[in-house]
């Protein structure tokens, strides 16, 4: 069943249409949601909520309109919104000296040093830059597609990608020069 058939099936009230849409699009939606929220549970919530929004709006969906950009727009907007709410909450918790959830040591050990350094640096970026970088590098989308999904002007996308890359570069450089810095193979390469 392709997207068009699935949408028509769902419009007729058959939940198999939704099952088909979920099966086809959840891997990508989950990856994007995860890279913005940085939390697998939150990513699942965001994606499940996004599909629910699809279900509630399906009757007004033009079957000729590509489904994936529509879904990703919902996912990204919800993920950004959730992340902002959570970061406000974490700031409050920080003020109250309550520790946030520690990283899973097994999970940390499984991730190689280079990846961990990049991901750790990515965590410290503003959420808008993280969203743009995720769509660009995780999903290999071009700037125009990112602009369409996020509803930003293309100039804004370019700016945020550029700033995101620069912030990331600075974060990685800081890590590389720190006393307990991991040995990053890609730091120090010639330009």
């Amino acid at each position: 069943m392709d997207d068009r058939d699935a949408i028509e099936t769902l419009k007729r009230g058959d939940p198999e249409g939704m099952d088909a849409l979920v099966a086809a699009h959840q891997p990508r939606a989950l990856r994007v949601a995860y890279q913005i929220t940085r939390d697998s549970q939150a990513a699942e919530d965001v994606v499940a909520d996004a599909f629910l929004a699809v279900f509630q709006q399906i009757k007004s969906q033009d079957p000729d309109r590509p489904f994936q950009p529509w879904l990703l727009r919902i996912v990204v907007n919800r993920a950004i919104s959730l992340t902002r709410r959570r970061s406000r909450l974490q700031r409050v918790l920080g003020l109250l000296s309550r520790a946030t959830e520690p990283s899973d040591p097994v999970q940390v050990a499984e991730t190689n040093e280079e990846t961990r350094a990049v991901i750790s640096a990515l965590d410290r970026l503003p959420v808008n830059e993280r969203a743009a970088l995720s769509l660009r590098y995780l999903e290999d989308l071009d700037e125009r597609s990112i602009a369409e999904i996020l509803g930003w002007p293309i100039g804004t996308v370019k700016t945020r990608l550029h700033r995101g890359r620069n912030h990331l570069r600075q974060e990685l450089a800081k890590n590389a020069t720190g006393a307990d810095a991991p040995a990053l193979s890609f730091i120090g390469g010639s330009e």
Partner: protein
Amino acid sequence: MISDSQLDSVLRAALKEDANRAVGSSNVTGQVRARMVHARHWHRAVAVPSSLAAVLLVGAVVLAATSELSIVLRYHPIGWLPTPGKLTAVGPCSSLQGMALADVQRRVNFRVLTLGGATLVNAYYGPPCPGSSEANAHLLYEENGESFDLGETHAPEGPITVDLKGTADRSPWRIVTVNGNDYAVLIFDDAVTAAAFKQAGTRVDITVGAKGGPNRPLSLDQFEELVLQIN
């Protein structure tokens, strides 16, 4: 200094590896299904008060409608009887002709909706009544000893009307919304025994348990699952 190409390459690999590790085996199908069911119940909860709020008194006829007016329950307190017995779209003048479902579909000018997951026992074609151009279809299904009669006709533009005896305040009929579509349902002792609705340009009138075995109660939740199988 990290070059752009180095950064791009590392970023791409790191993001993919990290995301696949974290959510590569996740599956939200069950969560989505659960949220859909919850949303349908929520719709139902808000649909009933809106239908009650829209009750209007016009002469001797009481109209109850959903906010989108896809179904009108028209009550006739005295002097008029709707189609006797079960609610059905098949007119009394029709002499039903048994035939294959595909042949029924070829003879009518609307899409014949079928009930998935149940066994089709018989399909009938009802020719138009004198003075009418509207033919009808009549499908009999059985599932787990329960029977479902589906009477189908071409649905008019705008809301469909369900003519009922009695008054709205004592009526066992109510309107529920499933997946955004409105259904008029007849409920006795918490069991749905008949329903009428419009879908894909077809009006469907269902009677539950009218043929075959005993009339087993069909809960409202089961009814919601049932109508999702009608396509």
